[in-house]
């Protein structure tokens, strides 16, 4: 399964660079570059206009949701076309906690992550014996159901109109700065947490059970444990993405979390090469956020141009040298 999804060269490269003692020079270089890139992103709102700051804020939120799909591919070997649902769960948690308890994002974000994880568990338990295309179709059913569910409970969810998210999360910062810096901070935090996770015994067990389930079982790792944990973690990450997206866009509505949202998340994940790094996931996030904007004037041609852009990116990325691709794919994670 996993070999179908992840090209073998990527796997070997990952493994080569994931050891405990990579070349110190290379490590120093990439750490230096990472810090420089982060400083550039931190300084960007000073030079970029409000429009770009707003768009990049959405892009960071989307990047987190893309990481959630990539996490499921990398650690679970499974594809989801329903992660918009978990994203929606996070977004609505933030909006509802503001509506009913007047709590801001900082208080509601952890709750959103927990709600996402629980929803992931609720979905994963009955589907724990499904895999491959069957699981993907099951997640699709979830994505199709969400807008209907939201509309059914319109007194709570605000129906078609949705809900507003307007409370400040950080008091002294301007609204537009908050909408940029909070998603950025969340993205960096998620990537750092996942980097730490990669070294854990749980991550090793998940990776082994994905490649050799029978071997993992012989060492006491259970398949159902692996599936439930993987789906819950992935859903929690998606919910964090949804929560910061709700904050950045200041509104949530059923239109934001349709089947297309889920499909685009998968597309973003493919474009990012299932990366769990800031750079890789941002590439997917930028594709997801910017390409529709750039193509906005093209009318009926949008889907065709979008598809062409997707092909272009995937083929182009595959044409890059292997070492660069591995770097984009978050080799050290």
């Amino acid at each position, binding site marked *: 399964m996993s070999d179908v999804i992840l090209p*073998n060269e990527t*796997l*070997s490269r*990952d*493994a*080569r660079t*994931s*050891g*405990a*003692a990579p070349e110190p020079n290379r490590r120093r270089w990439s750490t230096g570059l990472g810090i420089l890139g982060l400083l550039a992103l931190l300084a960007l709102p000073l030079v970029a206009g409000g429009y770009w700051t707003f768009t990049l804020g959405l892009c960071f939120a989307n990047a987190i949701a893309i990481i959630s799909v990539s996490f499921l591919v990398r650690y679970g070997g499974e594809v989801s076309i329903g992660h918009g649902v978990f994203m929606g769960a996070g977004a609505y948690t933030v909006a509802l906690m503001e509506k009913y308890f007047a709590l801001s994002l900082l208080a509601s974000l952890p709750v959103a992550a927990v709600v996402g994880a629980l929803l992931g568990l609720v979905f994963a338990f009955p589907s724990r014996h499904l895999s491959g295309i069957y699981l993907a179709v099951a997640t699709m059913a979830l994505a199709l159901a969400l807008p209907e569910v939201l509309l059914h409970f319109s007194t709570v969810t605000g129906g078609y109109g949705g809900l507003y998210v307007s409370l400040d999360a950080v008091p002294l910062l301007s609204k537009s700065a908050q909408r940029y810096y909070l998603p950025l901070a969340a993205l960096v935090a998620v990537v750092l*947490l996942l980097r*730490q*996770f990669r*070294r*854990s*015994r*749980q*991550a*090793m*067990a998940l*990776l*082994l059970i*994905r*490649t*050799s389930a*029978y*071997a*993992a*079982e*012989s*060492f*006491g*790792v*259970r398949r159902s444990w692996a599936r439930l944990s993987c789906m819950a973690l992935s859903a929690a990450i998606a919910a964090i993405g949804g929560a910061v997206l709700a904050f950045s866009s200041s509104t949530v509505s059923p239109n934001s979390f349709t089947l297309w949202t889920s499909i685009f998340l998968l597309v973003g994940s493919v474009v990012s090469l299932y990366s769990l790094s800031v750079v890789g996931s941002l590439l997917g996030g930028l594709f997801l956020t910017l390409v529709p904007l750039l193509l906005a004037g093209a009318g009926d041609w949008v889907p065709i141009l979008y598809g062409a852009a997707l092909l272009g990116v995937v083929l182009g990325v595959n044409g890059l040298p292997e070492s660069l691709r591995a770097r984009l794919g978050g080799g050290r994670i």
Partner: protein
Amino acid sequence: MKHANAAATRSTDPLVVEDLSLSFGGIRVLQGIGLRMESGEITGLIGPNGAGKTSFFNCLTGLYTPQKGAIRLGGLRLEGLRPPQRAALGFSRSFQHVALCPELSIIENVMIGLDRQSTAGWLDAFLPLPAGNRERAQNRERALAALDRLGIAGVADDSPTQLPPGLLRLAEIARAVVGDPRVLLLDEPAAGLNSVETADLSAALKKLRAEHLVLVVVEHDMDLIMDVCDTIHVLNVGTLLASGDPGQVRQNPDVVRVYLGDEDE
């Protein structure tokens, strides 16, 4: 389970198989097999193709459940237990086709052998907390010691995709022994190895012999089996044909007939 594990690990009871029978549909694969695999010994299991070695091995690992008979380790009955439950009792194994994860380094693969003994929780997984870090460092030390015992500590941080089959086989055995198992089952460890690699494997296996360890090797390579084993059991068409030390087995006329063919036929 932990108590049972501790008790099993302390004891030197043999792994005993009594009157074991297994069939698929109407086909009888194993019939009335009874044998003892002693602690502190290396037990070999051989037989021509179709003898039932793999089926018998799978009964020991918990992949197959025999219709009749018993598998006992001391006072524990094992035949109804699944592989993860047997792992909790100190069972460990290697695989005929190397089953290491290509995305993990060799030492990380070996550290999985310590997973069932580790206690680091989800918070330790995501945050660099002292207890989790300490356990990870200890597990790394133990994994390194296991690799060292098999003479391959030098490749600890390499990827399995870069290494030859002989080293991978040893790495897999390191993963199987790192948790100090009570029962170690090796499935054709010499498959696909050249003569130099087989000699290394043979030396490594002899070093694994330990008072509390039941070590069972299923193998085609007769030279390896004769070299490392204390006791050998020979299976043929689902029944136990002969048992004894390498000298006895080599002299046994039934074994010779099965392996070299009957002159009357």
